């Protein structure tokens, strides 16, 4: 098996809030991404998925754990030391309008990574930028326009072009289609699939939309309040979810097919605050199957199905009946 391009172990990130309080955004998260593999990071608000995306790229400094990028330990590197890594690990942001400098033309924006990292002459840079535009199916005529003159889909293509300009080995995508209109999303997803096939880069796809997740990911990591609840290949997550949270999440997804009406698992109860996390399972306060043992100690992440999956639930192997105490 090829060694992973990204391996995250026990990653934690806490934000100081002043007065001694901390937001425990990410707690002991681990996963890995192989070259050419797309791992989907899914969770609701407060799950910590965006924070993980940024921490993995060292835009934030981790509070604990290890990040191994292409075999190198990048956990404790300074900002300056991270600089040479940038061309090899890139990010596509959720909101293309705010991610691009509104005063630079699309051409200039796409040339920027080349300007920063590739030693090319001006003419060569221009040529490469045009080739990149073609690769992301952006009409050449759009290159001289400003972001304000481009549509959401076109802007996101510019962002993708920037991200692949330096041939990165890892691309983190933070909700790349969430701000876009429905009809535009399909085009961007197709583009991403194409990029994945042609570059062999590893992708971390962060989203809250289950439909997109299913389409694009090979493996899914389900997060809740900063911890991993379940990790499994995509098919298993959607067809045979095991963790109670995953099951509730999948059942809550509304597919556009009116005849498809899954049995919805309703969640009641309050979401605990990330500042004062409960000692046990973070999901216990809303879990329909929670028991005292769940609330007492944090359930460990247990390997399942021959190592291809993991889940953090102590009741996971109990037979499922209609009523569970």
């Amino acid at each position, binding site marked *: 098996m090829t060694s992973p391009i990204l391996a995250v172990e026990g990653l934690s990130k806490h934000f100081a809030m002043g007065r001694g309080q901390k937001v425990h955004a990410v707690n002991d998260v681990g996963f890995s991404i192989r070259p050419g593999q797309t791992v989907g990071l899914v969770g609701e608000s407060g799950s910590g998925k965006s924070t993980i995306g940024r921490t993995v790229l060292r835009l934030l400094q981790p509070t604990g754990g290890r990040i191994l990028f292409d075999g190198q330990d990048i956990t404790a590197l300074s900002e300056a030391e991270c600089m040479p890594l940038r061309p090899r690990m890139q990010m596509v942001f959720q909101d293309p309008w705010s991610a691009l400098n509104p005063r630079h033309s699309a051409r200039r924006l796409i040339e920027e990574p080349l300007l920063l990292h590739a030693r090319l002459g001006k003419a060569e840079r221009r040529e490469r930028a045009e080739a990149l535009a073609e690769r992301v199916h952006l009409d050449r005529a759009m290159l001289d326009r400003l972001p304000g003159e481009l549509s959401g889909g076109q802007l996101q293509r510019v962002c993708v072009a920037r991200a692949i300009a330096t041939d990165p080995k890892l691309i983190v995508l933070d909700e790349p289609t969430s701000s876009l209109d429905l009809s535009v999303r399909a085009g961007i997803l197709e583009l991403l699939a194409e990029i994945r096939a042609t570059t062999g880069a590893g992708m971390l796809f962060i989203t809250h939309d289950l439909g997109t997740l*299913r389409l694009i990911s090979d493996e899914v990591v389900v997060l809740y309040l900063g911890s991993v609840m379940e990790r499994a290949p995509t098919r298993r997550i959607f067809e045979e979810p095991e963790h109670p949270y995953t099951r509730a999440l999948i059942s809550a997804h509304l597919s556009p097919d009116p*005849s498809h009406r899954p049995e919805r698992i309703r969640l009641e109860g309050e979401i605990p605050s990330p500042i004062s996390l409960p000692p046990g399972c973070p999901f216990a306060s809303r879990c329909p199957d929670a028991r005292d043992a769940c609330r007492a100690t944090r359930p460990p992440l247990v390997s399942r199905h021959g190592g291809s999956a993991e889940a953090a639930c102590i009741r996971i192997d109990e037979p499922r009946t209609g009523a569970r105490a």
Partner: protein
Amino acid sequence: MTLLSVEDLHTHFVSRSLDNEVRVARALNGVGFSLERGRILGLVGETGAGKSLTALSIMGLLRPPARIVAGRIAFEGQDLVSLPPERLNALRGDRLALIVQNPRASLDPLARIGEQLARAHRAHRRVDAAAARRRAVEMLAAVGLPDPERRARAWPHELSGGMAQRVLIAMALINEPQLVIADEPTTGLDVTVQAQILDLIQGMVRARGLGAIVITHDLGVVAHYCDDVAVMYAGGIVEQGATRDVLSRPRHPYTINLVDSTPERLVIGSGRVFGGAPPNLFALPEGCHYRLRCPRADAACAVPPPWSGAAGGHLARCHRPEAP
């Protein structure tokens, strides 16, 4: 009597450009649909299609430079367009209610929740402060907020997104309206919370016999909660009918595109092109407004397309719609 009947509604934005020229954006072009009690109509479309604008036009909440330039909005038999402002104001919040987007930003940050609800109630009913407060707590309980007495004393910033949305629903329903319009009620909310909110709205509609319009860009919401759906593009409705019909067997090319582009239906690598440049409302093409993006467009489309389909049933506005 039909609860709401919108007929040939035209709303324009008239402004002056920097070059001192008059520019007209034709934001709504002949929108027409009807709504009966006890039913939920979904309004879908991309950004700029005119969904929110339709809601604002119905509620009479347009601000210059937007104005209704033609059309009729018959609510309980009365034409809202020709109603004097004071009469319309009396109806708003009483018999017609709007649940706006972005709940946390829509609440007054300087007043407690219970106070805001009581205000909404007293604007339309002659009750004293105590009665209004009781009613507020009643509504908070009705929308499923635990411990409503305590919640009534909470400040808006203490609420989560889902709770704030429930408060807005309570505020909309406090005077027992006949028509409720919910503008993107679940956008920005978590998936697990989304279902709860939609269940709530649907429950209210069925139990109290209201009519509701849900504006959304999420086809999943439409599929599971809306009885009927109207698909909008460039300020006009291109297809409408029972949800089951429209989503399972779409007839208009735009709807077909929309349904096929959802992740559940998308086939990666099929080479199909979805979406396209947003329509320029200042210069819409002659005839069918979807012409410039339509894969089936031909010379015949330079003429405004007719409605195809049985009246009151599954209709598509197209010269060459898919057969039903």
